[in-house]
């Protein structure tokens, strides 16, 4: 019994790290562009599909870790320029536009990839003993990759010139433009990075979950939950909330079925929204 608890808790933890990657993209897109991105789950799905195609065409799984975020980055930049930029002023319109985008992405994948889900076998098989249970190596590797990507993103945001620009535009757009920061290019870059992070998450998650054109639909509410519980605009909070939520669902799943676990986290989320709308981790509202 405690073995299943441990297994599900670990699974939850690692899934949470992957979700954190996706939710971070959602959070920066929301924070900088004021876009409520309904298509973000599908960005993740595109990542899993690109990983699958890369594996089929080249026979090399590892290449997917580079190709998926690259494809995501390019698509993200194009989408921002073509779809998001013309409607940038209103969040309500962004919901409709990204809803349309979500339909387009799902349908294009359904045409090219097909309607039936596929599985990717993990490139590393085998298990290692961990806290007394045998645990899949690939999942540990996935956790490592996610942590590396998260760390890389935070370092980029904190220590590079472009990262500083991104924080500046988010903080005060008008002043940033007055200081000569090319806000328009920052918007494109932000959307591209958001897509790339989700697609990278997709490539990492592909061997753990199934590759399916509807794979993003279930991910989306979960990512929004992480963003809200972590506190809108609080990036480390978002990452922490994703891990916490997923870990909690894993623990509950060891005693009840997954739907109950999902309901529990939704109830937790309502409580957070009503009692601490600034998020669990922040002492004040910005």
């Amino acid at each position, binding site marked *: 019994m405690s073995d299943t608890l441990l297994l599900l808790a670990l699974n939850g933890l690692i899934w949470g790290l992957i979700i954190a990657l996706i939710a971070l993209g959602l959070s920066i897109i929301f924070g900088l562009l004021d876009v409520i991105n309904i298509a973000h789950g599908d960005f993740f799905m595109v990542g899993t599909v690109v990983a699958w195609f890369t594996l089929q065409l080249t026979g090399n799984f590892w290449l997917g870790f580079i190709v998926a975020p690259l494809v995501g980055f390019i698509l993200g930049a194009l989408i921002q320029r073509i779809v998001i930029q013309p409607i940038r002023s209103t969040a*309500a319109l962004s919901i*409709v536009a990204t809803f*349309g985008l979500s339909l387009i992405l799902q349908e294009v994948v359904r*045409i090219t990839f097909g309607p039936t889900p596929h599985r990717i076998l993990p490139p590393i098989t085998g298990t290692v003993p961990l806290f007394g249970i045998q645990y899949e190596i690939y999942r540990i590797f996935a956790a490592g990759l996610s942590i590396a990507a998260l760390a890389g993103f935070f370092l980029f945001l904190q220590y590079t010139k472009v990262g500083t620009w991104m924080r500046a535009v988010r903080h005060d757009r008008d002043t940033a433009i007055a200081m000569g920061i090319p806000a328009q290019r920052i918007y494109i870059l932000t959307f591209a990075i958001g897509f790339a992070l989700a697609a990278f998450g997709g490539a990492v998650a592909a061997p753990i979950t199934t590759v399916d054109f509807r794979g993003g639909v279930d991910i989306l*509410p979960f990512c929004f939950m992480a963003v809200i519980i972590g506190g*809108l605009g609080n990036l480390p909070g978002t990452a922490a909330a994703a891990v916490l939520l997923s870990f909690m669902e894993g623990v509950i799943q060891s005693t009840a079925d997954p*739907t109950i676990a*999902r*309901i529990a986290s939704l109830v937790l989320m309502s409580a957070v*929204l009503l009692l601490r709308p600034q998020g669990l981790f922040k002492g004040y509202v910005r």
Partner: protein
Amino acid sequence: MTLRSTIERMLFALFAAFMLSVPWVVPAFVNDFWVNLIAEVLIWSLFAASVNLLFGYVGLLSFGQALYFGFGMYGVGIGIDHLGLSFWPAFGLGITAAVAMALLSGVLAVRLTWHYFAIITVVFSLIFYFLAVTMKSLTGGDDGINFSMPPTFSFGGTVLSFTNQTFQYFFILTTVALCFYLMHRVIRSPLGKAFLAIRDNDVRASLIGLNVYLLRLIAFVMAGFLAGVAGALFAFFGRYASASYMFYHVSGEAVVWAIVGGAGTLFGPIIGTSLFIFIREVVSTRWEHHALIVGVMAILVVIMAPKGLVGLWRDLLGRLDDRETSGNVAKKLRTEP
């Protein structure tokens, strides 16, 4: 009288005449299937109108109206299948369930605004979606409940029920038209003006003495009522109730229909809903990937017509009006009815 109101009056008369003649005119040109399709569009328009009442008139973007639609649906389904109710009590149960749920969740939800409101409405609807999926004995889960249709009216020998397509159409048309008329009256009343004041500036609205919380709650319950009526009608129409109609995608579609048609206008949701459902039905018989067209359409409309199709139409007519009343007259303040 402006050109715009003349044209719109004529269009409305045409529209009403068409709606009343659908069961005879439409089968003559296409077939019976289209009568049912128009009835379905009416139901979904009412659902989109519930999103519109909140977003277009009070400024609250709800992403969880499917919850009240689902409660209306299940009220009817459970009422007929488990409790053995006849038509009208089941109808009443569906609407009561939706309104009660809207009141309960509204008390909490309208404390929040904007993004937080959108998220909490989604969260509430997801909670009950997952509950409905789990409680299979009551709700039938994703498979839903199928039930056979009780008669609507029976006087002695004559029985009128939804098995009669023409009766079904007129019942739906009458109910939906009544709801729209009710909404129209509310919006023109002082209550409606208070809604608009809150939409435009909630701080000012509270400073002139409006109880913003209470007014938002009233609007929320009214929107729940509209969604509940739509759900109950849809249950009668399809003879079943299913948890899948409570998923957030259903709410999302209604938001898209309302905004594409024109939020804050009475006819916007009808136009948006008709557009998307007709495209879906016409294209899906010929091409499997009709969602692609719907997606492209949604994006094109928000880029080209950010005020929705009705807004685009009014801008065009407004330009004609301006030309008529030459330049030296001060621009009239544009108010939405």
